[in-house]
């Protein structure tokens, strides 16, 4: 090889790096043989605790993913390919993305689905930015009951783009406690000096409660704003889809569709919108077309929105996205089917009812009165301390609401807990017993032990 190139050593190929700028030696460990590396990784993984009865949700959910999903994902033809720039040898990826767009369009009741964003937070931020491009307005109203990480992400993106964000407060008490304050929303929308581009509300919201989404849509549209619904995809098997209550954009986290928890990623950002917003949606889109011989085929389309064509005038800088996770979601939906997905959602609701009843029976009633699907807040005095002690008893008791939403005084004594189809009666009993012992005080706790 050196002879063909016309050099005598590989080092000559690096002569163009100025001497003064050459690297100091790499101070890293030497190469590790696979056997030893496998042992290291096994030991690290084992340091994470997997023995807990977990009731943790808050934006990422434990579900049964049929083994077919991961076994199909492990085919190298899927995961070692890249963006389908050459459609003639990428019809597998292209058709799978078109099918993903179609499945999610059906689930959300909207028309156009992008071929993936990074996660629920980035998807929500991109959706909010879309409303500003589409309306030419620069102000966003964001419910304080969307996931705080999504609010944070949206704030970062909005700051970059020079957009104003106002938060819509929560109702503090009464039958609507814990939901977005629609009276406050109406007042925020009424400020005609600062017209609103988009209103962002989650269904279910971060506290697990169901919002009056049709009313949010009416208020937003009456003020000329667009309506972004932040969704959880499994719930859409049983809850009204965004298209049914006139949302213009749906954004959300696709992880519940067969994707492992994996400490936060890689996940799947979902963005869907109406036909009217098709040219504003960021990210890749795959369309149906035909080849020279008239065969049906699929191709990336409407590329003029994208960064590699449009550069500084692109709809977003997004390039590599989450294609393999979109594939995972499609395989999951195809395997579990429409009735299976409904069963997943409904069984989660059943288990959540059982969880709520079991916790209420030991002195931790629900904190809110409104309807919920499979996630709820229970009232526990000194919740963060109790949460820590329950961990010692082998129970991951959701998350203290005081940590999730520290700025909400009404949530100081709450645990946000979640059940899904995989939650068992034995886990619920373990949680209830441990909580009964904690709430009964140290003497009783000892007695129970």
């Amino acid at each position, binding site marked *: 090889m050196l002879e063909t190139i016309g050099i005598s050593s590989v080092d000559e190929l690096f002569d163009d790096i100025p001497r003064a700028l050459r690297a100091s030696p790499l101070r890293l460990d030497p190469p590790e043989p696979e056997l030893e590396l496998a042992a290291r990784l096994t030991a690290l993984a084992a340091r994470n605790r997997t023995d807990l009865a977990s009731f943790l949700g808050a934006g990422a959910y434990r579900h*049964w993913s049929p083994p077919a999903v991961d076994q199909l994902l492990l085919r190298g033809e899927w995961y070692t390919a890249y963006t389908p720039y050459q459609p003639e040898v990428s019809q597998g990826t292209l058709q799978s993305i078109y099918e993903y767009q*179609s499945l999610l369009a059906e689930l959300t009741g909207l028309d156009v689905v992008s071929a993936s964003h990074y996660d629920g937070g980035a998807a929500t931020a991109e959706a909010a930015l879309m409303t500003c491009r589409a309306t030419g307005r620069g102000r966003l109203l964001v419910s304080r009951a969307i996931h705080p990480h999504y609010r944070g992400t949206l704030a970062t993106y909005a700051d970059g783009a020079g957009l104003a964000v106002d938060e819509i407060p929560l109702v503090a008490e009464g039958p609507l406690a814990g939901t977005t304050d629609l009276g406050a929303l109406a007042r925020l929308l009424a400020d005609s000096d600062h017209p609103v581009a988009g209103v962002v509300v989650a269904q279910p919201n971060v506290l697990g409660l169901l919002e009056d989404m049709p009313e949010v849509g009416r208020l937003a549209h009456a003020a000329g704003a667009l309506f972004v619904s932040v969704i959880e995809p499994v719930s859409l098997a049983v809850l009204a889809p965004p298209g049914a209550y006139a949302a213009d954009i749906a954004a959300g986290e696709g992880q519940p569709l067969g994707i492992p928890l994996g400490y936060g990623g890689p996940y799947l950002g979902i963005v869907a919108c109406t036909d009217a917003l098709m040219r504003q949606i960021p990210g890749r889109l795959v369309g149906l077309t035909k080849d020279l011989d008239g065969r049906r085929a699929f191709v990336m389309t409407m590329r003029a929105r994208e960064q590699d064509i449009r550069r500084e005038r692109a709809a977003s*800088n997004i390039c590599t996205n*989450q294609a393999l996770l979109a594939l995972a979601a499609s395989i999951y939906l195809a395997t579990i089917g429409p009735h299976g997905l409904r069963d997943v959602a409904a069984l989660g609701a059943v288990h959540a009812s059982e969880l709520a009843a079991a916790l209420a029976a030991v002195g931790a009633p629900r904190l809110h009165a409104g309807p919920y699907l499979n996630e709820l807040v229970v009232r526990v005095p000194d919740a963060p301390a109790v949460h820590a002690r329950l961990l010692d008893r082998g129970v991951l008791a959701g998350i203290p609401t005081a940590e999730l939403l520290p700025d909400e005084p009404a949530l100081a004594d709450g645990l946000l807990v979640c059940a899904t189809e995989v939650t068992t009666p034995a886990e619920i009993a373990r949680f209830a017993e441990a909580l009964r012992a904690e709430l009964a005080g140290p003497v009783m706790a000892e007695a129970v032990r």
Partner: protein
Amino acid sequence: MSVVGERLQPTLFELGKHGRGGGKIPHPPKDALDRIPAAARRASAPALPELSELEVVRHYVNLSQLNYSVDTGFYPLGSCTMKFNPKLNEWAARLPGFAGLHPMAPDAVAQGTLQLLYELEAILAEISGMDAVTLQPAAGAQGELTGILVIRAYHRARGDTERCEVLVPDSSHGTNPATATMAGYRTVTIPSAPDGGVDIDAFKAALGPKTAAIMITNPSTLGLFETRIGELLEATHAAGALAYMDGANLNAILGRFKPGEAGFDVMHFNTHKTFSTPHGGGGPGAGPVGARASLAPYLPAPRVIREADGTYRLERTGERPSSIGRMRSFFGSTGVLVRAYAYLRAHGDSGLREVSDDAVLAANYLKARLAGSYDIPFERACKHEFVASAAGIKHRTGVRTLDIAKRLIDKGYHPPTIYFPLTVEEAMLIEPTETETLETLDGFADALIEIAHEAEADPGVVTSAPHDAPVRRLDEATAARQPNLRWRAMTGEQTPCPD
């Protein structure tokens, strides 16, 4: 149009038949949802396809056969670093302790993952010569946005608010100017010098009190090391601006050039390029960002902290108020980072240097092999990739780079990146990576040389390629003019729920 060709597949929706599938999830009681108000409930079930597991498996296995992939062949897609994805890494990411860990789990539950992430930050800092690393960005482009927002926060914190421009070369990735816009900056595009490199003098002339940052890919998107980069970095800092390095081409310089040591202030890594995490048909990636100490306060939160007692924890909400905040939910694409960690440990100090040596050797070898048959606009030693051009062939025969790319498909290869960088006529950006054998490189060179001969002798066979792919060239214009972005036949007939 015919629905499918010999190898093409019907869609899930055409395959579905009412009553197929099931058996995965127990049926809940019929009154399961009675406590949900009717107004909040879905009126009719989503019309998703119903399929047996066998049908699903065959569908996706057969569809996979329509893809070209690294596991099936040589994939010299320039700028994308399509190297082999070691199988150990897939195994590691699926270990139940890693894969099953909830992202909101308390730190005490997550010590193994936190330790891995902490060590990974340190390894990336050492490779880049940077002082601090965030692992949060989900992809290279998000890493760029993170880096530019960090730079903006730095200027703002110093009260330096007049800086509104980002300078990028015209050969840059499209993500660079798109990122500048998302961060609220105006992009100033600097034309390249005749030698293909960044025009250092033009850059220096454009620098000024309005410049917030320059964004440089080094080695450049032409695969060339910017030999005058030191001079440009000095001028940038003299102007009060900061220097961002797009790390897309890091695969060429591991152990040879540390951007932080050389004077860059911020950079991103593409784990799916340099550290072999799979490309996944278009993601997921991960885009960690390294920064020098003066910028560390602004990195996204949370980062991983090692306590004096050797335990690890995430930064708490509000612990570092100077942070630009969050770029996404939760910690980051941890599963991708586990794979990158495994790759970095497997290679270690000497292995990483070998990666770059072999990648650069392979690229220079291919460049030498093709020099007689294609235009090589920049003759000096390339790094991990190089640009060849079919401009001469096009002028003589009418055969374009696009045609040559399609003809490569017939010969069993994935085409290189074409028509990028935009600065070279009829460009082919070829990146062989370090993981290919000499036999593979020779086979590819022979194929490209043969196509150059075909272009002269029988141009029709090239311009009508591919002949041997699942489909022929596609009607992209109609796809864009009359977008069909979802299957619609299904919406006419909703399958009833059995219960």
